[in-house]
């Protein structure tokens, strides 16, 4: 369970209130128009933005004051998920030990994670020698390896073409289920939410609404969603 208790974010004239609980397991989509503050909300949960008020509680523990790397979660950004001067193996290995001093067991675990996302034989390549989809897979492998219970994604795979994006979303859904990860995914694309999200929460008019079963939500859209879908 990831709970936002009386959370208030403010940046200049922008403000967002959230008092919502996300159940563990499965994929939850955070949907809203651009500028609605969904990425800001994700940044606050990940620890890059201090809230003006309220608490962030994950699995019963208050994480509001923890550094980003100490929170029980991993993040995939829109881009810049890999260090360009480190190989795939090193980039993934950072998920186990940020100083990369890996034991033999850890090396084996790293190689399993690389294989799990279908990057066998590419461990020694630099990111610039990978395709966009392969780069996303490497970042996903690292998130799996870290083994944190929550995975946050900000407009994931948005730089990929439609076919690749669908493929990556499917891989994400499948691995999250296998590894028992709870996924929170920011997206502006309704088709992404419908494709993989068990639940969807709307960010609109400076507030976050509670997550609702995605199918139910789209079957009978509330006014805010209707306005967004057009």
């Amino acid at each position: 369970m990831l709970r936002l208790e009386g959370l208030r974010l403010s940046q200049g004239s922008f403000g967002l209130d959230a008092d919502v609980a996300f159940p563990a397991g499965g994929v939850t989509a955070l949907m809203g128009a651009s500028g609605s503050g969904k990425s800001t909300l994700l940044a606050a949960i990940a620890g890059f933005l201090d809230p003006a008020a309220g608490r962030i509680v994950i699995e019963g523990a208050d994480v509001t004051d923890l550094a980003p790397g100490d929170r029980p979660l991993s993040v995939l950004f829109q881009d810049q998920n890999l260090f360009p001067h480190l190989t795939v193996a090193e980039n993934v290995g950072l998920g186990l030990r940020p100083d990369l001093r890996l034991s033999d067991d850890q090396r084996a675990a790293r190689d399993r994670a690389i294989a799990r996302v279908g990057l066998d034989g590419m461990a020694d390549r630099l990111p610039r020698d990978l395709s966009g989809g392969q780069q996303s897979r490497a970042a996903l492998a690292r998130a799996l390896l870290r083994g944190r219970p929550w995975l946050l994604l900000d407009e994931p795979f948005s730089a990929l073409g439609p076919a690749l994006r669908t493929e990556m979303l499917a891989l994400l859904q499948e691995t999250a289920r296998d590894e028992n990860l709870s996924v929170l995914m920011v997206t502006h694309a309704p088709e992404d939410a419908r494709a993989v999200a068990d639940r969807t929460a709307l960010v609109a008019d400076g507030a976050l609404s509670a997550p609702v079963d995605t199918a139910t939500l789209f079957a009978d859209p509330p006014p805010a969603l209707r306005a967004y879908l057009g």
Partner: protein
Amino acid sequence: MGARLGLAAALALAAALLLPLGAVAWRAEGWSGLRPSDWGALWFTLWQAAVSAALSVLLAVPVARALARRRFPGRGAVLLLLGAPFILPVIVAVLGLVAVFGRAGVANVALGWLGIEPVSIYGWQGVILAHVFFNMPLATRLILQGWLALPGERLRLAAALGFTAADTFRRLEWPMLRAIVPGIFLVIFLICTTSFAVALALGGGPGATTVELAIYQAFRFDFDLSRAALLGAMQLALGAAAAALSLRLALPSGFGAGLDRAVPRWDSRGVGLRLQDTLAIALACVFLLLPMLLVLVEGALHVTALPRVAWEGALRSLVMALASAALTAGMALPMAMAAVRRGGGAVETVGTLSIAASPLVLGTGLFILLLPVTNPVDMALPVTVFVNVILALPFALRALIPAMRTLQADYGRLAASLGLVGFAWLRLVAVPRLGRPLGFACGLTAALSAGDLGVIALFASPDRGTLPLVLYQLMGSYRMEEAKAAALVLVLMSLGLFWLFERGGRHVET
């Protein structure tokens, strides 16, 4: 953690600046301790700096204009040549100027053919000549930046309206010059007010002694510590006044990135203008190259005659250069980390403050501080390294902070989300990603430190000198051939260290 280290480094730097200055202020007792000649030194410092800066800028304008509007094979080499004096050891350049303009130099021989009495390089004219040698290239590069910043669209518009070269000058170039030249003048003025090695080698005596040189003389010849401190306070006041003045002017920044393009021009195709530009560039090249060639070629012929003391000095200089580079990098890297964090502006300010510090004042202060504890002469080499690091840090920070800012913007969140902080971050991200600016900073520090003739002259005993000091002593005893051989070794070491670090940095980054 790294940023906290950076804050500590900034505090240490502030202390390293303030403690010696405090010691100088404490030992300086009332202006009545000054002799008339000391006020003469202040006057000379001011007017020679003003004349040097004015001449440097005036001579730089035609060269910069020629480089801005001409493309020709070898243009890159000319730009490189204009950058070289910055890392050229001062004493080597002085030796070269003596070879050209000295009593037996090329210039006086030519004057002799014309039946004109030889002109001496020793005195105020030599000091100014050397300052122009060092600062005309700097001014050229900075003014060239302004020229290349003229929008191409506006030059195209000027061409469409049929502007002549004179029209372009009045409408576009003159306003640009008026905006940037005062700042450049001030920077060079500042550099010339802290001149020591040039004045030591070519000046001296009434009418050609700078305040820095007067500190050295009070110290070394009269061993009058309180008068040295008084003169230090005078130099300090001079620096503070200049720094206050500089806050009101936009100072030029950077080392001249992106000078390798020439703006297309349509107004300068006439034969007369071509001749004028060719002449400006050729004269500048001869002025910069001839002294160097005379020293280095003759030095190569006599390098086997180098006395043992010169090789020992070379070894000392090499060790000091490497120590300075390592310490500067070790301080600048965490300071740059701290500077790009929230509230890091103070760190940046401390880092740039030390640019106004004068090596001789710092040296005097350190001497006063060390005297009760130990024999300062034994500490000559560590003290010199210390002062070199302080003087090199502003340049290192200027290279590192913008790169660090970009790195933070690109990968700061990723690193934070992985808990990649502190030394692991330095090792895995900062050093590999900042190879170029780091290599540049280390190379610059090593070159400046190897060629430095400042505090070392204040402290060292003759038998424990660095290579620049040995070179100065050889020059002083008119052993010119050996001096030139020592100059060759020194140039190879300074430029070699710069080149090695620079290349190393590029290699790490790719």
